[in-house]
């Protein structure tokens, strides 16, 4: 017990670890906030620096960057309408309208507090339920992964304003882009058009920077002459009553965040979208309509994506499977330091687990401090004239894309995706489903083929598995319900039932 406590408090009591966690969190916020710089990218670069460090020092810095970076993405989502990371896509839905209405400061303040709430809930659940949740995730069959990814895509499709068909088309387009390259099983080229350069695939960050950076920059050119909205950032600290009001929702969405974060390969991006959808469906009287600056629409994704960080650590520490892209990089770092992430980690090196839990809590404390500071400075950045900001965004997009693989070809791809995104934006397509499609498409392909192989290439046996396994049945029912919920069938059913119930 005393050992456990000393492991938990290690990062709090050692000045060097304390400083590294603080530095990581501070840097993470700004890395996450700068469009084009991703947390995954920053952590990947950092890992190479920290190979020669002590493992605790390396983990302290990485945890800080991770926590700060996931939160930092919300700042650019709120102030620029450019999510700094996929996990901040849903934050922009209501965060940016809030900034447009002069409530950027309060939105950032609330998102900071709620991110900390989500982070703490996520960490507590990691500490208390890791073995249990790990066991549940272990029971997932490939068909379940397929269903979870399908739920993610359908949810993001249903979030597309106006038309589900547009959302599904966008997700399909994203999936095709995600599938470009060598088939991981047979090494056969798919959608490569005979080009060797495309055999390695298209990195989804290239697509993300193109769609969210370049397309947005082109779109913003239409509003060049409109006066710059002075972001009102004087009321940063949200009132206690405001926090208390959103606390029940934040706890619910934190739980969604942790559960989604636990699922390997599915991270804060889907957690945030699912939480947003949950808020949209359950909050009857939002502060403003969703999509037009509802605080509930800001609270839900921000708590969920922060809670998903704790969730993402669960399969990593207990199963050796990455919860998301960042934890995939962290697994690499642990292996380099001679540790073996997986079920044996808890037995052989229990201090890593408890140290991580304590460190995550500490990073959340620093997040609260740094998150509520320096907002005015960042907001000044947004007050920069668009004629200066737009060319700068393009330069940042070029730098961000090039730093992934040092490839100019990818920079050209990024620009091409930007033009495509601009065209799609004109005709009312959302960018979120394309990104999610690109991330989840390959995951669905792999799990579909694994599921089919385990069913002996017999579709009937696969379908049987969907209804006989309780877990698959629940997930299948969720897919059907989401599909039905977006068709006129449900509306007709509701309208038929309501007069009947009124009469009854």
């Amino acid at each position: 017990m005393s050992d456990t406590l000393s492991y938990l408090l290690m990062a709090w009591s050692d000045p060097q670890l304390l400083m590294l966690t603080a530095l990581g969190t501070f840097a993470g916020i700004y890395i996450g906030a700068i469009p084009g710089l991703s947390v995954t990218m920053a952590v990947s670069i950092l890992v190479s620096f920290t190979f020669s460090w002590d493992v605790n020092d390396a983990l302290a810095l990485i945890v800080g960057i991770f926590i700060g970076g996931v939160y930092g993405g919300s700042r650019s989502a709120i102030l620029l309408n450019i999510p700094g990371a996929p996990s901040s896509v849903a934050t922009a839905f209501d965060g940016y309208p809030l900034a447009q209405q002069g409530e950027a400061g309060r939105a950032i303040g609330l998102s900071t507090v709620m991110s900390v709430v989500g982070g703490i809930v996520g960490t507590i659940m990691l500490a208390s339920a890791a073995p249990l949740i790990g066991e549940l995730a272990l029971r997932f069959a490939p068909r379940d992964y397929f269903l979870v990814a399908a739920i993610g895509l359908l949810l993001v499709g249903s979030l597309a304003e106006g038309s589900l068909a547009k959302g599904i088309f966008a997700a399909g387009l994203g999936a095709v882009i995600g599938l470009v390259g060598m088939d991981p099983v047979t090494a056969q080229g798919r959608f490569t058009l005979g080009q060797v350069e495309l055999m390695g695939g298209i990195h989804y960050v290239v697509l993300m920077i193109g769609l969210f950076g370049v397309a947005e920059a082109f779109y913003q050119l239409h509003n060049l002459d409109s006066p710059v909205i002075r972001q009102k950032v004087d009321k940063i600290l949200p009132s206690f009553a405001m926090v208390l009001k959103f606390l029940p929702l934040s706890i619910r969405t934190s739980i969604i965040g942790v559960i989604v974060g636990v699922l390997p390969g599915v991270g804060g991006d889907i957690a945030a979208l699912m939480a947003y959808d949950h808020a949209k469906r359950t909050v009857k009287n939002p502060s403003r309509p969703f999509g037009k600056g509802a605080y509930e629409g800001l609270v839900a994704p921000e708590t969920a994506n922060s809670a998903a960080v704790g969730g993402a650590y669960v399969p990593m520490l207990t199963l050796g499977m990455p919860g998301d892209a960042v934890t995939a990089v962290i697994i690499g770092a642990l292996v380099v330091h001679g540790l073996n992430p997986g079920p044996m980690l808890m037995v052989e090196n229990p201090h890593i687990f408890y140290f991580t839990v304590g460190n995550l809590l500490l990073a959340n404390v620093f997040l609260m401090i740094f998150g509520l500071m320096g907002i005015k400075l960042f907001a000044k950045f947004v007050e920069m004239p668009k004629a200066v900001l737009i060319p700068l965004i393009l330069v940042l997009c070029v730098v961000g894309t090039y730093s992934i693989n040092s490839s100019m070809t990818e920079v050209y791809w990024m620009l091409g995706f930007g033009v495509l995104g601009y065209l799609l934006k004109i005709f009312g397509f959302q960018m979120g489903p394309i990104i999610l499609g690109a991330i989840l498409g390959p995951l669905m392909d792999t799990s579909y083929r694994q599921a089919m192989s385990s069913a002996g290439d017999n579709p009937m046996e696969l379908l049987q598995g969907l209804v006989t396994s309780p877990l698959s049945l629940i997930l299948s029912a969720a897919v059907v319900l989401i599909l039905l919920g977006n068709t006129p069938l449900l509306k007709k059913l509701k309208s038929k039932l309501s007069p009947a119930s009124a009469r009854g």
Partner: protein
Amino acid sequence: MNKTDKMLVGERTFCVLLVLASLVVFYLAYQISGFSSINSPGAFPIGVALVMIFSAVKIGVELIGKAKPDCSGWLDAFQQFRDTHFPRRILVFGLLAVAYLAAIQWVSFYVSTFLFLVLSIVYLRKGRVLNAILIAAVLLVLIYLLFSLAFSVYLP
């Protein structure tokens, strides 16, 4: 008539292009391994292509109830589309962006970035050359400090 019930200029053409693009995706997906097996490398891509075709057609069907845009003939529609979505400002900025990417390989990242920032700021602000040079220089120093020194990112 509600504004949202009106078709955008070029929306019908774009919809046709979506259907055609989906058919091309289907053809490319079929070329991977045909209908050889339900578990082949091309099976899932074919499924995705079918979903794309279906949703593109659905997007087209959704247009049926909408009112047509106010334009006479293809040429007028094209001009309206160009003026609304691709005004000169966007075309010039797009050309500057392409020239910038091409120039990176010829004259180094820093020189091309400086020139791109100066030219685009001057064009978008309609003048103030000295101001633009100063802003571009400050931004370039910040980019150097942040990316080269702080993050050690490989720059083009």
